[in-house]
């Protein structure tokens, strides 16, 4: 008997517009999607599409104009530790060390110090930053900063991890390395992930399923389940075939 998958996070008819004097942009237009528990979902879209807005709505940082977002069946009303976010610009606290940054979520929750640091250390090791516990963000490279961002979000034990083009600011080789690392952490510590990107290769490498957004208005254009077993090879023929298919499907915003 097939088991019905558990829906972890869901968007129902979500719409969001940005209004100025001259025009209204329908950034998100009636978006409905469901993410299964422990699924790695990738939302792919070109530069100006509403993918970051969608993520921010799911995080609760902004509220949709219409529709609802549900976590485990309950409508969300604002941000919270049940949905962790990894930001493209890292959003690390510059006055805190790596250790304090990573344990931040636990500190807010009121977890006592030794337990906090123990959990944080585990994730610092997981992202390969052993030895840098007492460093400050300005002493780290872009790739390292983002690893702190990852560790910080993951260490707080959220039910859903929302990642907003986290590797967008990194160079190609560091990006490949980070993709590999994200996947390996996810394999060890499975969680529901919604990952936003504009990079087709990245989407296919990471995602169990890829949703393509169109832009202006932001709508779901198509969905692609990726059936290639992980870890995937960028130059595998099936991978390339998928890439060709999805690439031809995405829009170019000039």
């Amino acid at each position, binding site marked *: 008997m097939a088991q019905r998958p558990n829906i972890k996070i869901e968007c129902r008819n979500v719409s969001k517009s940005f209004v100025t004097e001259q025009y209204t942009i329908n950034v998100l237009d009636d978006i409905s999607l469901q993410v299964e528990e422990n699924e790695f979902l990738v939302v792919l879209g*070109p530069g100006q599409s509403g993918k970051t807005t969608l993520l921010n709505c799911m995080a609760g940082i902004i509220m949709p104009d219409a529709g609802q977002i549900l976590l485990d069946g309950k409508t969300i009303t604002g941000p919270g530790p049940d949905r962790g976010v990894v930001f493209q610009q890292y959003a690390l606290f510059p006055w805190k060390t790596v250790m304090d940054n990573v344990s931040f979520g636990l500190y807010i929750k009121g977890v006592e110090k030794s337990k906090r640091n123990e959990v944080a250390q585990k994730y610092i090791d997981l992202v390969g930053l052993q030895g840098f516990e007492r460093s400050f963000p300005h002493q780290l490279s872009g790739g390292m900063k983002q690893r702190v961002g990852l560790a910080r979000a993951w260490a707080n034990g959220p039910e859903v991890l929302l990642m907003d083009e986290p590797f967008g600011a990194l160079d*190609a*080789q560091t990006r490949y390395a980070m993709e590999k690392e994200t996947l390996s952490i996810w394999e060890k510590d499975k969680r529901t992930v919604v990952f936003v990107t504009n990079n087709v290769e990245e989407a296919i490498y990471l995602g169990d399923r890829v949703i393509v957004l169109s832009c202006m208005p932001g709508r779901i254009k198509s969905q692609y389940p990726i059936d290639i077993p992980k870890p995937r090879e960028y130059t595998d023929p099936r991978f*390339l075939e998928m*890439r*060709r298919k999805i690439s031809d499907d995405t829009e170019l915003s000039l």
Partner: protein
Amino acid sequence: MTTKEDYAREKKVKVSVTDLTKCYDELLVLDDINFDIYDGEMLCIVGPTGCGKTTFLNTLARFIPATKGEILVDGVPSNPRCHNIAFVFQEISSVPWLSVEDNIRFGLKIKKLPADEIERRVEAMLELVGLKPFRRNFPQELSSSMEQRVVIARNFALNPDLLLMDEPYGQLDIKLRYYLEDELIRIWNELKSTVLFVTHNIEEAVYLGQRILVLSNKPAKIKEEIIVDLPRPRKFDDPAFVKIREHVTESIRWW
């Protein structure tokens, strides 16, 4: 696969770099680099992160002085006054207070070309990059792809002896990137310029380059030279393309 001898046979050497070395105090960044750039060639440089690619470009463009070594353009030591070496940066560098057509005129005016020649080139470039309807707009009013096209137009209008590009498409989204790469190829074909393109993205290098130089880790040396003789337009899923890509990836990985 074409051999290096076959490749170089029909070509004229435009730029010759010999024994290029750069030290910052005790730190040796570039170590005795020797290579030629052929006239009208699209040459790509790749290397591991932090190997000194940007230092390499800056030294080539004479922004920073080399510790040792010579750069000859057309057989003569490179001189900013008579040689045209144009540079495209990672960050979009259009001049914000000038309109699109004034941006293109900008470099030409600095080089003190005659007025009618300047106008002729500006018109030609606007046509070539498809920005004629936007000639009077300011860069901030345009999308980032259009801004990049302004920068491309400005640089190509100079008809440079050598165009150096430092990963200009790194931060753009991928479809845009493909588009701009195609634009670059198209313009390069039209004008037959000599281009040196530095990038972290191996696929981009294989897509664009006729030849790829792989730099080693610091201190940087030329590790390998790979000829890419695939027909254009190139396809990333073509087995021959994939093979070269994998070869370059391996080459960077092991040092």
